[in-house]
């Protein structure tokens, strides 16, 4: 813990009685009162997360768009100004995923993105080295320390935010963002209509002292502070993938990007010339062996909690492995996701989850999201 960097708003989290944990080298608020209560607040009302551990990066220069087109699987040029691109993948040459990202188009020559905490430095040096390799005029700046980042999420997010922000913020369309808007009487750098919970909401970048003011105001209005532990349970219910769990760069450890079944238009097949394209097309031609599936524990094993690296078996044969799992406060059951041999990937069919002790629980393969939305 001593090596972990505290998030800039740590003092406020302490006032809110957070317990802290380490995540990707950061000391983050893991939980305030109860992960289950915080999770349910986001699904039924609203919650606010401090996600300052995520990276904040600006890419600018006359060749910025050109660079991004060469590094991501989606047609970045289709992104409307002052909108986010929708999720897309940065691949390595094995068609394994370096990071999944949304690109914020300020203008052709100015883009922002939020790398996952664990790969912020890696992605910045990757963009810089690729720009150099291709001879492109691009400058990459790390804004991570300059701004803190909050996520207000939940069906009532709009209602709460409208008490401290103007229409220009509250009326943002999904994936639209605004620069320099005021919230709670302080300037923000950026506010976007986005999030990672499956609920409506906003993500706010602001200087730490200003983000602190906004956080206090939201909590004062009755928005529940939500820790990083609930962020994980929320994303697992939705089937959202996380680097180091569902994907990673190591081809011995992770199947190719196609197996990830990312969806959401993350890959444009009529796009050419991006890093990893040859391996990705080879993977498509050959067909995948592994495919990511979701599953929910059967009623009889509702309290069996699947966890990363547990085995998946069918008729006693090893057919896959769990990449993420948790207890779902909404379904009141264990659920999760993992990779399974495609021959056994049959929706609604049972699979057996086996833990390290040899305990077994029966689950049913289910399409994402794993809760009814």
């Amino acid at each position, binding site marked *: 813990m001593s090596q972990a960097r505290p998030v800039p708003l740590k003092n406020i989290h302490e006032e809110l009685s957070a*317990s802290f944990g380490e995540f990707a080298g950061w000391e983050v608020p893991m939980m305030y009162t*109860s*992960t*289950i209560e915080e999770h349910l607040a986001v699904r039924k009302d609203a919650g606010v997360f401090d996600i300052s551990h995520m990276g904040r990066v600006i890419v600018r220069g006359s060749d910025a768009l050109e660079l991004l087109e060469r590094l991501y699987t989606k047609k970045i040029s289709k992104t409307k100004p002052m909108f986010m691109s929708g999720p897309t993948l940065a691949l390595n040459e094995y068609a394994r995923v370096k990071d999944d990202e949304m690109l914020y188009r300020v203008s052709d020559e100015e883009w922002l993105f939020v790398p996952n905490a664990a790969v912020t430095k890696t992605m910045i040096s990757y963009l810089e080295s690729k720009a150099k390799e291709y001879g492109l005029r691009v400058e990459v700046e790390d804004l991570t320390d300059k701004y803190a980042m909050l996520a207000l999420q939940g069906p009532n997010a709009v209602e709460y935010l409208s008490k401290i922000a103007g229409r220009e913020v509250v009326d943002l369309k999904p994936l639209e963002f605004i620069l320099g808007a005021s919230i709670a009487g302080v300037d923000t750098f950026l506010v976007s209509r986005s999030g990672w919970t499956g609920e409506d909401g906003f993500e706010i970048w602001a200087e730490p002292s200003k983000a602190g003011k906004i956080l206090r105001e939201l909590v004062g209005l009755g928005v529940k502070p939500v820790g990083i*532990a609930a962020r994980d*349970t929320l994303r697992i219910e939705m089937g959202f993938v996380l680097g180091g769990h569902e994907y990673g760069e190591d081809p011995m450890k992770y199947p190719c990007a196609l197996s990830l079944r990312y969806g959401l238009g993350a890959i444009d097949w009529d796009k050419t010339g991006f890093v990893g394209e040859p391996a990705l097309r080879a993977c498509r031609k050959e067909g995948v062996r592994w495919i990511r599936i979701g599953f929910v524990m059967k009623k009889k094993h509702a*309290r*069996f909690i699947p966890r990363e690296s547990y085995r998946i078996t069918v008729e006693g044969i090893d057919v896959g492995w769990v990449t993420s799992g948790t207890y779902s406060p909404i379904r009141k059951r264990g659920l999760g996701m993992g990779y399974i041999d495609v021959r056994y990937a049959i929706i609604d069919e049972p699979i057996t989850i086996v833990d390290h*002790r040899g305990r077994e629980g029966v689950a049913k393969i289910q399409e994402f999201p794993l809760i009814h939305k």
Partner: protein
Amino acid sequence: MANANIGPATEYTCGASLMARYEVKVGSLTVVIDDELLYTESDEWISVDGDTATVGITDYAQKKLKDIVGVELPEPGDHVSRGDSVAVVESIKAAADVYAPLTGEITEVNEELYDAPELINQDPYGKGWLFKIKMEKKGELDNLLNHEEYVEKIKKES
């Protein structure tokens, strides 16, 4: 002295002047200790009544695990040896093994926990008990920690 940082008493036994439970600060946690119980290094508590020992996990253990969402308990009639992994407590955070603190036969398990595992969070020394053992080797009780030794153990961990 183990008692140096012990907080105020929170509960008094009726009529008696004896303090049954008290609070101890361990890192950021405030942990309730019951001075009438015995403890293990692996955070189980034991209450002895004749030949029968009731076993649960301590307030410190449940506070570290946080949201408890499932349990797996032994079957009545199972014979267990001291140190065997006999139960699992699942929280959102982790799955924790519970070890038999004593050798003997499981006589009863707390079936209420199957539907309401959160009782372990709410009342670890009461309604959150896990199982009962009919002891075969009463001498094994000497291996257990008293409340002061247990406080020293958890303070060392933090």
